[in-house]
């Protein structure tokens, strides 16, 4: 197969036949007035991708400034400039920018040719990090549709909630990530296979700027997911800010462990693609030592992860024992990394730099960054706002507080979300009329403009970079076991945060802990499952007759199973 042929795509007749069958079903449903069911599309790509010539760092055509007002067109501009450069590398080989652009166009043509196609339709992506994800992401935007990324191992009831809330017209997956038993409709198949020299027929997307590009579902206080609405401008503005903050270069090779469906992972995707760099996707990064080996063997220039991963890298990864000459920088975000661990990572990766960052999904991804040279001076700081972002500490009435006063951390900038999907009340709570986002994090600012966090103003907890609201666990248990009151209390286990579920009977009849545990194991992903279930007579109450969560938290150290509830002394094994 020639390289030119490798770069092309074709739509298999199978997919067309499936479409015709689908059309018949859709027509009959339309006639009967019922809503059409979600269409399912499975992407196949050729595993025998030809590896392009070695990366040439001199003489490449660097992408120009991002002038388009929609992310899809910006992607195409970069893809044209970087056509033969690898956008994604996997164990199967390298997928050039040209390949991704053609694959994205294939997805676009599929979406646009569907009966009942409308701009602004939601398209759910249930794909692990892969060339298919990247193609489906930009293909959806090029079709003027809205990306709704779903974690591949999303628990079933959560998946149903998100599908119900976002009403996607199509769900795109691939055979490896798709569980056929989840759906009733028969999937169509689209081969991102390179054979014919078919021309890409690209028309300019119509949507731009303030139009919705992506719905990122996150944990809500009522136990139901909230959809963060991100526009093209939000995504482009945050990518631009990050590119000004971090030394991302067109010859970069970023080793990716963060899922693209996560705000932090998505920002890694956008920044590297818009810079014309290469994403290294390796499926076997479970072991801390495999991450360090991959950084070395794949000559990765950068790496980003949540705090828990850095804890594991220090404890079991032997980070720093062997040199990583290609590495230029690492970043952490998605939760708080202990200052001594951050300093230790920085020491071990020198001369590469370590950047502590802070952000949230409502601000597309990232809001603040602590320059590596400030790490030792501003112990525990999340840094200063990145370019294009304003941060301020405010009181209840949205008035800015002076330095060194703790209040609500608020953010403003073009990266701040449009609002929550179909939830005007939650949007009003989070966004002020003059554009300030109340982050929910308590913070103070020092006299030099560096910010420091002081915990959450609400009950949200970060577990491995995922936001979890205790109401999700409590609601699930109380719905299934009406005689049980449940309160989930976050607790430290080593350097990890997990939940203890306290249970009390409402009617003095015994509580079936085994059944409750089985329900949680069935319905919740592992990071949300309580580590321990503790039945108590009655909950302690505050003076306002609310459940006293602080008093419950004080009971945790007395539970025998929780004796390891202390931070680990990770640094005893320093190489």
């Amino acid at each position, binding site marked *: 197969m020639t390289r030119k042929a490798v770069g092309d795509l074709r739509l298999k007749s199978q997919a067309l036949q499936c479409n015709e069958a689908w059309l018949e079903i859709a027509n009959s449903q339309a006639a009967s007035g019922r809503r059409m069911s979600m269409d399912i599309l499975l992407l196949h790509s050729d595993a025998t991708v030809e590896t392009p010539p070695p990366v040439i760092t001199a003489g490449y055509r660097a992408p120009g400034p991002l002038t388009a007002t929609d992310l899809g067109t910006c992607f195409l501009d970069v893809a044209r400039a970087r056509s033969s450069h690898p956008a994604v590398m996997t164990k199967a080989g390298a997928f050039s920018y040209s390949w991704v652009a053609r694959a994205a166009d294939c997805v676009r043509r599929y979406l646009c040719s569907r009966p009942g196609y409308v701009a602004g339709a939601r398209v759910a992506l249930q794909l692990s990090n892969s060339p298919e994800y990247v193609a489906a992401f930009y293909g959806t935007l090029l079709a003027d549709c809205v990306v709704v990324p779903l974690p591949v191992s999303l628990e079933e009831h959560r998946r149903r909630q998100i599908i119900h809330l976002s009403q996607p017209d199509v769900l795109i997956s691939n055979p490896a990530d798709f569980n056929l038993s989840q759906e009733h409709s028969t999937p169509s198949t689209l081969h991102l296979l390179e054979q014919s020299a078919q021309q890409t027929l690209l028309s300019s997307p119509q949507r731009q700027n303030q139009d919705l590009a992506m719905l990122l579902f996150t944990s809500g206080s009522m136990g139901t997911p909230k959809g963060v609405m991100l526009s093209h401008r939000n995504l482009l503005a945050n990518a631009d800010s990050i590119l000004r903050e971090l030394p991302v270069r067109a010859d970069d090779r970023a080793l990716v462990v963060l899922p693209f469906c996560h705000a932090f992972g998505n920002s890694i995707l956008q920044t590297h693609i818009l810079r014309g760099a290469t994403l290294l996707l390796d499926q076997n990064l479970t072991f801390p*030592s495999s991450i360090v080996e991959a950084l070395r063997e794949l000559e990765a220039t950068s790496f980003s992860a949540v705090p828990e991963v850095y804890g594991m890298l220090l404890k079991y990864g032997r980070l720093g024992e062997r040199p990583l000459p290609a590495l230029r920088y690492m970043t952490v975000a998605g939760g708080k990394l202990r200052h001594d661990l951050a300093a230790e990572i920085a020491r071990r990766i020198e001369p590469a730099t370590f950047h502590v960052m802070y952000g949230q999904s409502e601000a597309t991804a990232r809001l603040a960054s602590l320059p590596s040279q400030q790490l030792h001076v501003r112990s525990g700081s999340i840094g200063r706002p990145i370019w294009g972002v304003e941060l301020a500490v405010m009181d209840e009435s949205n008035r800015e507080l002076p330095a060194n006063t703790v209040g609500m951390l608020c953010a403003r900038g073009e990266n701040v979300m449009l609002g929550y999907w179909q939830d005007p009340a939650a949007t009003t709570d989070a966004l002020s009329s003059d554009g300030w986002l109340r982050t929910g994090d308590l913070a103070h600012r020092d006299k030099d403009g560096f910010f420091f966090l002081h915990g959450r103003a609400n009950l949200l907890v970060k577990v491995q970079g995922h936001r979890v609201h205790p109401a999700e666990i409590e609601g699930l248990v109380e719905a299934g076991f009406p005689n049980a009151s449940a309160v989930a209390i976050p607790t430290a286990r080593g350097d990890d945060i997990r939940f203890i579920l306290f249970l009390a009977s409402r009617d003095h009849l015994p509580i079936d802990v085994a059944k409750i545990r089985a329900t949680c194991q069935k319905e919740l992903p592992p990071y949300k499952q309580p580590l321990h279930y503790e039945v108590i007579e009655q909950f302690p109450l505050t003076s306002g007759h609310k459940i006293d969560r602080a008093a419950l938290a004080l009971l945790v150290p007395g539970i025998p199973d929780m004796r390891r509830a202390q931070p680990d002394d990770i640094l005893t094994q320093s190489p």
Partner: protein
Amino acid sequence: MTADRKGLEVDLVHFVQSRGTRYAKATLQTDLLETGLLDSLLLMDLIFHIEDAYGLRFDSDQVNPSNFRTIEDTVSFVLKQKSAPQV
């Protein structure tokens, strides 16, 4: 917790199976890496559980695929460590 092979096998299989529907069919011989069941969270939880329940401490050389590919591998590793003289 005492560490005879049978008891360890039952305990660790139950530990993995009880993580949810995806894990329910895991057996002693299931390849946890090939099947994608072993993510970093399960790895961390397994280490915590074994350290707490069996009084072991893993060092960096021991947290690798050969000790965690299957539950059987982990059981063999724990037994070997328990029978080795403690330093």
